[in-house]
């Protein structure tokens, strides 16, 4: 697979352990005590959206659900709140992945913005059921920062796949 459609570079296949590693790093980033900064992007949502777009056959709703449960427990929120949001985001991302990958990176970032906003909106909707508390507009800044991070994130996460294939002297091509 190529970074974008216009690129002529062909990437190596992704390594499953790297996906796992990146998801774990996102979880650690989310567990950092950053409750004082509500504008921090939801790293797990960002990484799940990224891999659902790049590798819909490796990362999908199952991983979204499991990571969502982990976030629910760690955040002391309602069970299933993050899980539902991540599952929905992963579904939409994977079904749009063929389309989104045709765009250059900047426009891919614009495509991810509504997905990340939806993650926050779903959680707001879930929490509005028992009693509405508006967490403030800064709650919606995170998705914008997440979309801005899309371009650097793509480079960092695709870095292992940019490595050249081992040279083989006997190969014709």
């Amino acid at each position, binding site marked *: 697979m190529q970074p974008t459609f216009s690129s002529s570079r062909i990437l190596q296949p992704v390594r499953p352990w790297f996906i796992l590693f990146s998801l774990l790093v996102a979880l650690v980033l989310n567990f950092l*005590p950053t409750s004082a900064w*509500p504008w921090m992007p939801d790293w797990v949502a960002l990484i799940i959206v990224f891999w659902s777009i790049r590798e819909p056959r490796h990362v999908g709703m199952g991983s*979204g659900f499991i990571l969502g449960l982990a976030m629910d427990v760690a955040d*002391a929120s309602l069970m*299933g709140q993050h899980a539902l949001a991540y599952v929905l985001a992963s*579904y939409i991302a994977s079904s749009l992945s063929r389309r989104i990958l045709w765009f250059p990176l900047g426009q891919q970032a614009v495509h991810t913005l509504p997905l990340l906003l939806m993650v926050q909106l779903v959680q707001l909707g879930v929490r509005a059921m028992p009693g509405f508390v508006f*967490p403030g507009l800064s709650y919606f800044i995170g998705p914008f920062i997440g979309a801005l991070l899309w371009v650097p994130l793509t480079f960092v996460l695709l870095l292992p796949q940019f490595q050249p294939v081992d040279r083989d002297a006997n190969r014709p091509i």
Partner: protein
Amino acid sequence: MDHQPPPFFKRGPAPLARLSFYATLSLALLFFDSRFQTLELLRQGVSLFTHPVQQVAHAPVDFFQNAGNYFSSISRFQDENARLKRAQLDGADALLRTRQLEAENDRLRKLLDLKGRQKANGRVTQVLYAARDPFSRRVIVDKGQQDQIVAGQPVVDDAGVVGQVTRVFPFVSEITLITDKDQAVPVQIVRNGLRSVVFGLGDGQLELRFMPANADVQNGDLLVTSGLDGIFLAGLPVAKVVHIERDTSYSFARIYCVPVAGVENFGEVLVLDPRETTPLPAQLTNEAAAASAKASAKLGAKKKLPKRE
């Protein structure tokens, strides 16, 4: 015998099927968690996985904080030490007098055949972090089931009530602060002994609800726990009234308070031991038993009726 072609591009169930499965599962979890609170075991199981990851995440933060403390100047510590000594001396006369009064109170209570007051004992815990959930006000402390913490224990700091333990995990537990939305604490006004319940508003303030518009409440009134709930010990400071709106078109006054304790400052808190349960008077328990016996007899009679027919 013809062979099926091998599944070249096996992709499992259709995405929409998977979506509906996971979405239904999450909605069911949401429903059961918010209505029945029956998922504590699942929560504890998942926390066994998330707890180590959280510790990994907190390690660098702790390290930098400790490093900052290490390099902070010695004069600051000297200042702090002097201030603490002065505070201890300031409080010494009150403390000595309190001890004497407590002994006297015990003696008098014995003379009057009253039940002795329960002493406030507890264990000091360190607040680890505030939950990242922007919808609720909760903190996580570093003691859990291993230290015999149980859900419902009151939590105080040096100035007053901070909150209540709501969930207990193997190594940590979760404290819901009194400023959390709709967290209730039964209170009493010190000045005139008026009893009420104070609710969290979710924005750092508290509200005294269901007080009539002409209730005797004034700005600056101190609210302490009334102890009627059987959870909080009586007399712990909770909040101070800061703003009262008396609008005659509503039957209740709107009374806003701020917590006395440093509810949102995270440091060390004291988890008080659970309060001893006071048994109901014998007459009340007898009445309750009789009522329930009557009800069950009625139920039995109703059940038997169709059989006879």
